[in-house]
């Protein structure tokens, strides 16, 4: 539960910052007390992209591992260490961001320089997460020792794959923080290798989005079938999809750097191919989910082509929220293929299209699934019950989130295709004609954010 408290406090703060940003970008509002736009943008990105997700995922994975392969008292103690170290790191980084000493956005690109404490905080979050990794590995190891010759439980297998991916990916951010950013921010080195720091960030940053996605896949493959009263189509297919995602994630970050000079075109090509390969486990997952739905519905007696669809438990928020997440992943995934295509990347690079894509995939696909998970995980952890009234409230929350995010991300996609920039404060850009085409979409984002963020928080 401790991980969940941090998760949802982060959601409240991060959601509020998102709302403030859309106010500022619509040109109707100026931040009080001299607070900088880029400070709140950094808070939004760091606290939602890095803090909320990591805390949620590690907490969720601990509970899955505890349930499937067991958690010893010694491991539980170590898990608390992991939590406190991550929290200490989060507080250090957050204080620096909130006091305006680390307005470097969540990508912390050099040459933007933050206070050294920000980088130490990030390093602690990574170290804390590694403790969780080794506890999860140890949990599975002990289970396998006690159950020789048996196949490891599916969810424990999935958690392990996700954590292997996390370790490999986070090495990149650990190296960049320890070797490049900390010495530079302390003044021990006069310059920093910008290209290398960005490359190491994206070596981490793209597998990071798979690290958010795989827990959603865990729920889709292994938990949703139970909620709808069916069973997983194929255990082996699920395991293969996870293995493929792991293999295709090392390394895969160059598609974020397609416009970057200094990276050989061949390597860009190889990593673009690896990005495209992710279509395979993704479509395998889509196939498995549809097949689970269809098999469950047909067993209940629905014989028409899509009749089984009606039989799904639409009034159960534990199903509805993840289902909307799945649907959002259709345009989200399609947009990802566009982003990773070199020529089309030129069309959308650094535009707010990318932010729209990100809000479809992270804020809808992953986060709505996380909401759905929370609606059964929290009652399970606390020994309480999701009452029909709370279920109804959950449905309202999921739907307001959906409507808001849909309007916002659609507006962002369109504005991006019209050339609207991302990561930028309100500006009239010296009255350029192109700018006039953006403002209505900016307004749409503002009202959508007002609609969705706060009720959900």
């Amino acid at each position, binding site marked *: 539960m401790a991980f969940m408290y941090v998760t949802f406090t982060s959601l409240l703060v991060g959601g509020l910052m998102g709302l403030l940003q859309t106010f500022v970008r619509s040109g109707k509002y100026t931040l009080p007390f001299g607070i900088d736009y880029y400070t709140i943008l950094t808070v939004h990105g760091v606290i939602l992209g890095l803090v909320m997700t990591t805390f949620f995922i590690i907490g969720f994975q601990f509970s899955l591992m505890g349930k499937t392969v067991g958690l010893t008292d010694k491991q539980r103690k170590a898990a608390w260490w992991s939590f406190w170290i991550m929290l200490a790191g989060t507080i250090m980084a957050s204080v620096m961001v909130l006091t305006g000493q680390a307005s470097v956005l969540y990508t912390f690109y050099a040459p933007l320089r933050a206070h050294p404490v920000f980088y130490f905080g990030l390093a602690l979050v990574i170290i804390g997460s590694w403790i969780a990794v080794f506890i999860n590995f140890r949990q599975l190891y002990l289970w396998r020792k006690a159950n020789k010759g048996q196949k490891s439980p599916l969810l424990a297998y999935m958690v392990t794959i996700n954590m292997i991916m996390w370790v490999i990916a986070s090495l990149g951010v650990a190296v960049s923080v320890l070797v490049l950013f900390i010495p530079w921010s302390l003044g021990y080195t006069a310059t920093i290798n910008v290209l290398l720091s960005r490359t190491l960030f994206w070596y981490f940053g793209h597998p990071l989005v798979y690290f958010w996605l795989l827990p959603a896949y865990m729920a889709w493959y292994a938990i949703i079938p139970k909620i709808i009263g069916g069973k997983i*189509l194929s255990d082996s297919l699920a395991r293969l999809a996870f293995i493929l995602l792991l293999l295709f994630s090392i390394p895969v970050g160059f598609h974020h750097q397609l416009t970057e000079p200094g990276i050989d075109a061949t390597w860009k090509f190889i990593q673009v191919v690896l990005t495209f390969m992710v*279509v395979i486990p993704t*479509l395998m997952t*889509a*196939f498995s989910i*549809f*097949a689970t*739905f*269809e*098999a469950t519905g*047909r*067993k209940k007696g629905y014989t028409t*082509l*899509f009749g*089984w*669809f009606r039989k799904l438990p639409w009034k159960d928020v534990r199903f509805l929220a993840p289902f909307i997440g799945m649907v959002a992943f*259709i*345009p989200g*995934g*399609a*947009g990802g*293929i*566009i982003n990773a*295509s070199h*020529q*089309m990347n*030129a*069309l*959308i690079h650094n535009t707010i299209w990318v932010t729209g894509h990100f809000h479809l995939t992270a804020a809808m696909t992953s986060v709505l699934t996380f909401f759905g998970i929370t609606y059964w995980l929290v009652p399970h952890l606390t020994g309480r019950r999701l009452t029909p009234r709370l279920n109804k409230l959950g449905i309202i929350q999921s739907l307001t989130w959906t409507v808001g995010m849909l309007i916002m991300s659609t507006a962002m996609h369109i504005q991006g*295709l019209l050339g609207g920039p991302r990561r930028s404060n309100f500006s009239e850009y010296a009255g350029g004609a192109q700018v006039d085409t953006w403002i209505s979409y900016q307004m749409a984002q503002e009202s959508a954010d007002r609609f969705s963020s706060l009720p959900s928080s």
Partner: protein
Amino acid sequence: MKNKNPKPQHTKSNESTIHFKGTFIAVMLLGVIMVASWFGVYALFLSR
């Protein structure tokens, strides 16, 4: 007679008798959406 073989027998799963026509169409639709959106933005790229 009791089966003495300790290995679990693979029984034919119920799924094999179920038609997955809806699943097939749904997954094909996903493919169409992906290709159509890609070509949509590609057309925009060519036109600029």
